[in-house]
């Protein structure tokens, strides 16, 4: 690649890439993010390549390998451009059919998406209910770009925002645009990004400044940042370049968790390509602006997502938070002024500069502008990553986009914000999704995890799960966080093992309040949220465990009994799967579980096709 010596060179390159591509040629887009690859997308890629070569269609049909498209339930999926035909859950044999049909300009009806309720076939991706209500400002780009080809990114408008900012030449203009846009940090705290950048821009530049991308994404069940890092790493790089220009920073750091190997690989390739092209390094495009990005890998600690712990980790020390003030904009990495933003925040920056801050602010609500990506998982039909405008109600997201409950049990609650967040019960699903409403309801937006729970979920078990996570991830410095999470877990465990008392419940609440008040960093301060929010809305479940020694959700093993109902048709599938031979019964007769032998492993329930195993 020839190095770009001036902004003009970039514009020429971009124009050439756009005109070089013939938009009429159909493209088979295969989503091969981590979820796609885990479902078998690599086989599809191989099959597609083989088929196209065998039929000598190499200049008639193209293949594009991209990152995640968001509809993880339907992986491995194929999208056919330019029509927009969507094929879910494709197998290698299906690929052959699709290519065969595409060569004639046709589609394969039988492989199209089938709506679970109407049973109708829907061809276009844009018409599928999962996609219809989304506003995919960030995620839609994943479909158009092969993450390891910088030219794909440039052809699709990439780095145009950077060249616009550099051509304008005024760092203050960039900061003003970001302030006008109303962008708030997407990592969870929601601090106004423009204000943070303004602080950094004003900070005295003695020994240099840093901008950091926090790609630690530790929340269990949240993987929004992963899809952006894997599918569109250049959007982060461009965002950081713009941020560096606006604030006077000359160094950038991307702190990515080590458990995202594909993200690390794609980022490394993207950084290398940027340097070759001259978009990173000294005197970028002849403007005098110098900036480079270093990739730092995490080492398996959730607490290193906290900004002061992240700074210590980047410096090579043990990840432990410290007291703020002084804030990182005053004293950050190596004592230099530092701004730390989340992956999604950085991905929004090129969008803001391209369309303007005012235009960006038109999406969303008054103090919560723009879109947010959520990882919608749990007991719903369509799990995946959804990007919606701020202010959409929980009900719309869970039912219209998510498709409603997956089993017979009705939906009970939604957990937002990961282990720092809380549960919102179904009665409050009219709440709009924005920073302030969720905080008022006792939860937080967090980084975007949204776990849907139904009547077969035990809220005590949920609180116990998150407390177990937090006590293992607490750095251990603050006595109250370390011991508090351990003791809260102890009490929750007692309750789930039928040893809980009501005194312990009030102790739990008291302890939760003190942990929240006295911990130094966000981990400890929000550690009590799962407990406090489940107690606020589902106190009766706790009392059921304590007073009646019953678990309504059926998750706490000590408190439940497995029985077989009249729906049993005597097929015997359960008895075959029982590891302790506790099920007996004659063929075609209702079977019986011996409670004394039953270990409550749940095998019988999962194999029963008549829903005849009851867990009470």
């Amino acid at each position: 690649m020839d190095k770009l010596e001036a902004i003009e060179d970039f514009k020429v390159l971009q124009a050439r890439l756009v005109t070089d591509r013939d938009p009429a040629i159909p493209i088979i887009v295969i989503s091969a993010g981590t979820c796609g690859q885990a479902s078998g997308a690599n086989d599809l890629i191989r099959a597609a390549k083989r088929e196209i070569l065998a039929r000598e269609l190499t200049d008639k049909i193209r293949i594009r390998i991209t990152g995640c498209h968001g509809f993880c339930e339907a992986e491995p999926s194929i999208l056919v451009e330019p029509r927009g035909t969507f094929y879910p859950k494709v197998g290698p044999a299906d690929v052959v059919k699709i290519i065969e049909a595409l060569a004639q300009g046709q589609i394969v009806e039988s492989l199209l998406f089938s709506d679970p309720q109407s049973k109708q076939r829907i061809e276009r991706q844009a018409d599928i209910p999962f996609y219809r209500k989304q506003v995919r400002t960030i995620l839609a780009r994943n479909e158009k770009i092969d993450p390891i080809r910088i030219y794909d990114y440039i052809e699709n408008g990439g780095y145009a925002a950077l060249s616009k900012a550099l051509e304008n030449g005024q760092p203050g203009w960039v900061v003003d645009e970001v302030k006008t846009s109303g962008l708030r940090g997407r990592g969870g705290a929601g601090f106004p990004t423009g204000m943070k950048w303004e602080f950094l821009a004003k900070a005295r530049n003695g020994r240099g400044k840093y901008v950091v991308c926090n790609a630690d994404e530790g929340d269990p069940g949240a993987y929004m940042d992963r899809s952006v890092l894997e599918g569109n790493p250049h959007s982060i790089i461009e965002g950081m370049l713009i941020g560096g220009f606006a604030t006077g920073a000359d160094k950038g750091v991307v702190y990515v968790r080590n458990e995202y190997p594909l993200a690390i690989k794609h980022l490394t390739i993207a950084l290398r390509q940027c340097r070759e092209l001259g978009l990173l390094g000294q005197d970028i495009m002849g403007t005098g602006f110098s900036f480079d990005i270093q990739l730092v890998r995490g080492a398996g600690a959730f607490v290193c997502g906290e900004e002061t712990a992240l700074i210590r980790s980047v410096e090579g020390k043990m990840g432990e938070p410290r007291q703020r003030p002084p804030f990182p904009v005053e004293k950050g990495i190596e004592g230099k002024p530092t701004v730390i933003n989340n992956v999604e925040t950085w991905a929004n920056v090129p969008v803001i500069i391209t369309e303007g801050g005012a235009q960006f602010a038109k999406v969303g609500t008054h103090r919560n502008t723009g879109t947010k990506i959520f990882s919608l998982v749990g007991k719903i039909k369509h799990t995946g990553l959804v990007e919606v405008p701020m202010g959409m109600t929980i009900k719309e997201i869970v039912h219209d986009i998510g498709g409603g409950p997956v089993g017979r049990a009705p939906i009970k609650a939604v957990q937002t914000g990961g282990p720092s967040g809380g549960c919102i019960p179904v009665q409050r699903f009219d709440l709009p999704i924005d920073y302030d409403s969720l905080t008022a309801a006792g939860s937080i937006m967090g980084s975007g995890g949204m776990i849907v729970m139904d009547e077969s979920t035990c809220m005590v078990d949920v609180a116990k799960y998150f407390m177990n996570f937090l006590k293992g991830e607490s750095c251990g410095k603050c006595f109250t966080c370390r011991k508090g999470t351990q003791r809260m877990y102890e009490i929750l465990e007692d309750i789930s093992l039928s040893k809980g008392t009501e005194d312990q419940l009030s102790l739990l609440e008291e302890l939760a309040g003190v942990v929240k008040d006295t911990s130094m960093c966000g981990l400890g301060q929000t550690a009590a949220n799962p407990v406090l929010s489940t107690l606020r809305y589902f106190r009766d479940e706790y009392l059921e465990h304590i007073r009646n020694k019953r678990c309504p959700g059926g998750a706490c093993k000590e408190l439940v009994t497995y029985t077989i109902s009249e729906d049993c048709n005597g097929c015997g599938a359960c008895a075959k799967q029982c590891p302790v031979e506790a099920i007996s019964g004659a063929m075609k007769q209702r079977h019986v579980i011996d409670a004394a032998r039953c270990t409550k492993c749940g095998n019988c329930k999962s194999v029963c096709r008549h829903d005849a195993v009851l867990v009470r």
Partner: protein
Amino acid sequence: MITLTINGLPVSVEEGTTLLEAARFLGFPIPTLCHMDGLDPYGACRLCVVEIGEGPKAKLVSSCTYPAQEGLKVRTASSRVVKARKMILELLLATCPQSKIIQDLASAHQVRQQRFRQEHEDCILCGLCVRMCKEQMVAGAIGFRGRGENRSIGTPFDVKSEQCRLCGGCIYVCPACQLRCTYTEPDKAICGGCANLSPPCVEKEQFDDMMCYMNPCVACEIERK
């Protein structure tokens, strides 16, 4: 000079003064465990928390690490603070009941009960020994390892330290556990000096006790055993 208000009283302090120092200057008592004059403040024990700010944004911060700010309003014994201190002392008693300092603190704050399952640990991970070794003795032989439940203090990989000068500073500063040299249980020793079975003194045979310069190093007692 920075002026702030503590419990309603205004006080002017130099920049860089912590809230703890300012409060003590005025004579307001704030309990501490992991704080020691002369060592960098750490903020681990959370006993020194005070309430700052007003209204819904009021929060608790550790006064030993929080720098004084112009116009700050501080309360050292509000009900939120007292409640927090009592719970922290309950947790401390539940972990480390045999420490006299913890017992005294609990008694001084009217904590007469602890409602958790009793544990008997001998370290509250306050980090005083670590900071003593690193800052005062400039040795850095011991440090924190692990995270959360697995956090502990010791030498890297539990290998006997070459940096440790057997000064006993760590034993001296330990506030909660009155850590005694556990030479009868060598696997619990922090300094590991007693694992050195050959006395570090030189040419003892020639000069008898004149060469015994590390008193008590107890190496010859161990050897005699």
